[in-house]
């Protein structure tokens, strides 16, 4: 039986302010109660709106996983690619349609597990992509297997006695591979995360934002950490903000302090800048740069 709360009747007429950016026919989404992924989507949608970018020129690419479903809920050109392949797909998209803002939103397992090789090379090339990685320290969708981000000692379904591997520290991985913008926030840092996404939208090159997110159903349950709300309280009590921190000092240990902030913000030539320069110098007038508006297919 449905019992409406006091405010429901009036609210039914008003739609949520982010509705124009969402595929509302698919809402409610599949994510578990108190999962953090939806909050990241809200922050991304808000940042897009505030940035004033032309939404017809924005595309979102996701891989596979719970986080990989993000592209399917945004009312933008979106691509749900195969597992780990969001970055090469996005790279092709950007090279063929350089006028687009290409965003990759996907999970830790997808982007730095199976897709780890693509990750370091996209960063190395300073490929002009905005990458938002939702890090819940685990493979959520497939049942809580150990991820390259699982902190030491944390349990996962494949490390039932605790993880003994050394995890990646993602800001350090991105920065040392060549990313030109690197930040980390948690799902609780809604305002800073939104600002950071908005700021990164206005920049060029490989822009990497890690968002620590609760996975109550697997990571928290296997580690007896409670609900998503408990995770939010944990972030509230233990996250520290240290903008400009040395990325070598950003490891995450099990249930210990999470350092957040913007760590790298440099303007370096992107892959396309370097390519155009190189061939421009080499070939002079004979060089035809990647077509701008319309992309490859619409040339001539």
């Amino acid at each position, binding site marked *: 039986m449905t019992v409406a709360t006091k405010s429901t009747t009036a609210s039914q007429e008003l739609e949520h302010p982010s509705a124009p950016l969402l595929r509302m026919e698919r809402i409610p989404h599949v994510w578990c109660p108190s999962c953090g992924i939806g909050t990241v989507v809200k922050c991304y949608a808000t940042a897009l709106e505030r940035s004033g970018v032309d939404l017809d020129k924005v595309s979102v690419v996701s891989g596979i996983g719970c986080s990989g479903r993000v592209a399917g809920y945004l009312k933008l050109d979106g691509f749900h690619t195969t597992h780990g392949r969001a970055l090469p797909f996005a790279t092709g998209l950007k090279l063929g349609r350089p006028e687009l803002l290409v965003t990759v939103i996907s999970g830790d397992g997808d982007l730095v597990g199976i897709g780890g090789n693509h990750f370091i090379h996209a960063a190395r090339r300073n490929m002009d992509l905005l990458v938002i990685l939702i890090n819940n320290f685990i493979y959520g969708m497939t049942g809580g297997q150990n991820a390259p981000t699982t902190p030491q000692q944390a349990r996962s379904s494949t490390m039932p006695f605790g993880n003994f591997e050394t995890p990646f520290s993602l800001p350090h991985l991105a920065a040392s591979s060549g990313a030109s913008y690197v930040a980390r926030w948690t799902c609780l840092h809604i305002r800073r995360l939104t600002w950071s996404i908005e700021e990164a939208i206005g920049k060029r090159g490989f822009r990497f934002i890690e968002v620590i997110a609760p996975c109550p159903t697997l990571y928290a349950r296997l580690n007896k950490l409670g609900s998503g*709300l408990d995770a939010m309280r944990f972030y509230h009590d233990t996250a520290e903000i240290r903008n400009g921190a040395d990325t070598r000092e950003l490891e995450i240990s099990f249930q210990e302090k999470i350092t957040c902030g913007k760590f790298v913000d440099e303007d370096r030539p992107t892959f396309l800048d370097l390519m155009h320069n190189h061939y421009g110098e080499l070939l002079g007038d004979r060089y035809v740069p990647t077509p701008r508006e319309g992309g490859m297919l619409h040339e001539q």
Partner: protein
Amino acid sequence: MRYWRDPLDAGQVGAPRGDVHILADRCKGCAFCVEYCPRQVLEMSREFNRKGYHPPEIVDAEACVNCGLCEMICPEFAIFSVESAGLAGDLAGVSVGANIRAGEGAS
């Protein structure tokens, strides 16, 4: 918010007022909005929505300052606030950050 001295314009400046809207059937009962609303506008209700979750309910509508925190933090797109006409009166009791849109206080 407690000030170490009264702001000079305390007489003229009021906090913004908001009307909060809950799309109860979309809610999955995470309680993020209830926990982080800086004005204690919300509480978890004991009623069930269509999916069997407890949505929040409004217990102090007048206190809403349209900070937008509930809207930003909700993973379900199930709550939002809109500006309402008029001022909420004085700032007494507004916890730090409540008058900044999108929840500086909690983050």
